[in-house]
């Protein structure tokens, strides 16, 4: 690559413009991709920021330019900041639960030689499900009257633990986070398994001969070996949480009383239920900026961790 670059800059001007014919393939090969990306990714991105300066219900020509009014409103919008707090909670609990459990399962599957293939195949099933399917299934599982969770709790006489899991503002977000973790843990598990598969087994053997226990081998040798993969996993979990939408939209729609609202569901409601297209675009644009910011901070922090270790 670097060699090619050197060649690239070394090509004299005259030669580069020698024939337009040489430029033809470049244009033809790139135009379709550029066209799709500009129309359906770049234009919407720019358009979203433009729309954020309007007061518009999205119908007809009633739009009014209001400058930064929407952004000022956003800064004072308790619902938006509440949604952001929920996104951060989702990110926090995703990292807290998904990564350690996935790591544990990966180590377990890596240790268990027999039957681990069939386990891995079955563990992966949740990732094949669409979010609508999962959302609808778990809505039924959490159902206060007919759902298996409450039925089980009553059957073992733990009636004190029977709750309206999705209908109680204190529990709704947590209940959905459990499902999100359930679905995503196998993803990180496979990621860690791929990392472990390149772990040199002599390293473990040598440590074992020196009398190191399994837990020492894990904490002192395997975990440091996997730190790059763990870093990737943490970044993916955090960025994914900041832009999360599906299961919350399907299972609680941000409710009850906005207790499980995320930035993306709040944006969606603002636009497609309250018909505040301008303000909804402000929420969307702010979400974009926050996602970029969080991604940058996460990558910076995890990189620092890497150099310290």
């Amino acid at each position, binding site marked *: 690559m670097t060699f090619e670059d050197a060649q690239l800059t070394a090509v004299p001007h005259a030669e580069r413009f020698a024939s337009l014919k040489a430029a033809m393939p470049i244009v033809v*090969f790139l135009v379709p991709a550029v066209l799709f990306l500009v129309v359906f990714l770049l234009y919407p991105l720019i358009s979203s920021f433009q729309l954020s300066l309007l007061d518009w219900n999205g119908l007809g020509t009633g739009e009014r330019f209001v400058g930064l009014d929407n952004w000022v409103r956003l800064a004072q919008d308790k619902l938006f900041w509440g949604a952001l707090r929920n996104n951060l909670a989702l990110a926090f609990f995703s990292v807290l639960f998904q990564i350690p459990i996935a790591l544990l*399962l990966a180590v*377990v599957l890596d*240790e*268990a030689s027999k039957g681990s293939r069939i386990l891995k195949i079955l563990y992966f099933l949740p990732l094949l499900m669409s979010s609508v*399917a999962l959302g609808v299934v778990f809505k039924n599982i959490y159902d206060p009257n007919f759902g298996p969770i409450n039925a089980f709790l009553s059957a073992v006489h733990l009636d004190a633990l029977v709750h309206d899991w999705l209908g109680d503002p204190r529990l709704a977000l947590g209940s959905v986070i459990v499902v999100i973790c359930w679905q995503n843990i196998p993803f990180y598990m496979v990621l860690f398994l791929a990392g472990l*598969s390149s772990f040199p087994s002599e390293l473990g053997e040598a440590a074992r001969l020196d009398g190191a226990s399994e837990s020492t081998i894990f904490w002192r040798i395997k975990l440091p070996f996997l730190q790059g993969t763990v870093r990737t*996993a943490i970044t993916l979990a955090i960025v994914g949480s900041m832009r999360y939408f599906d299961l919350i939209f399907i299972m609680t729609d941000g409710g009850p009383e906005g207790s499980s609202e995320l930035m993306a569901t709040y944006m969606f409601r603002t636009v497609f239920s309250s018909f505040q297209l301008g303000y909804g675009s402000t929420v969307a644009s702010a979400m974009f900026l926050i996602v970029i910011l969080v991604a940058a901070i996460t990558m910076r922090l995890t990189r620092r961790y890497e150099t310290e270790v």
Partner: protein
Amino acid sequence: MNSSSTTVSSGKGRGSRLTRVSVPILGLFWLVVTTLPFIFVVMTSLKSRQETFTSPVWELPKKLNFENYIAVLHGGFWVYLRNSVFVLVLSIVLILLISSMAAYAFARLRFRLNKPLFGLVVAGMIVPIHITLIPIYLLTKNIGLYDTPFALIGPYVATALPISIFILTEFMRQIPKELEEAAKLDGCGAFGVFWKVFLPLSGPGLSTVAIYNGIGLWNEFIFAYLLTSSPANRTLPLAIWDFQGQYTANIPAILSVVTLTSLPLIIAYAFGQERIVKGMMAGALKG
């Protein structure tokens, strides 16, 4: 990926007693956690509506009751399936063609903007699709594609391109230059080299891209929900959504829709677990 992990791990079987006991217990525990919801879905879908109200959820169905499945199959399921297949096939063909063309240009053609343009395309991966929803909704309405399966093609292809181009560019950079030179000596231009050398040799990369995007698009919800409205034009994930409104409080019927819509992918998975797992991990493992 997996084959190497199993051969390596076979040498590690002898651990302490604690690991010998805890490994199977943890393995089985997570198996139960993973499969219980699936068992609940299939079991309940085979019950009668009455049964779900009168008998405990963990009781087996009194008799296998397929009437929900029959009702769903007669109630428009095939239309959703047809739309899903149509949208998937068209999107994947376009994604493969467009991203491999761009990848070839980035991997092999020399031009001044190669690196910055590639960086810009790859940066497209972090754009949350939700910021594009409002403008794409307006655009779709304006160009008259709203509530047609075609409305989904543009957003599906565009959101898939950054990662697909990234994966294929990395892949094509590995293809030996000698093969390219040989084709050029035979009189192939850039198009000939791409069509006769790069495309055939990129098989594994193309299959990864197809699986990764195929599964994501097959299950895609938000664009499909927003850009189509009538059952005649909607895809499978929306079947669950629409039936849910239609079958309120008929739990077995809703869960049989869930089973039917999830079945195609699970059948595909049964035939190619390794490739599907590898394909789905492509984004994380390469990026």
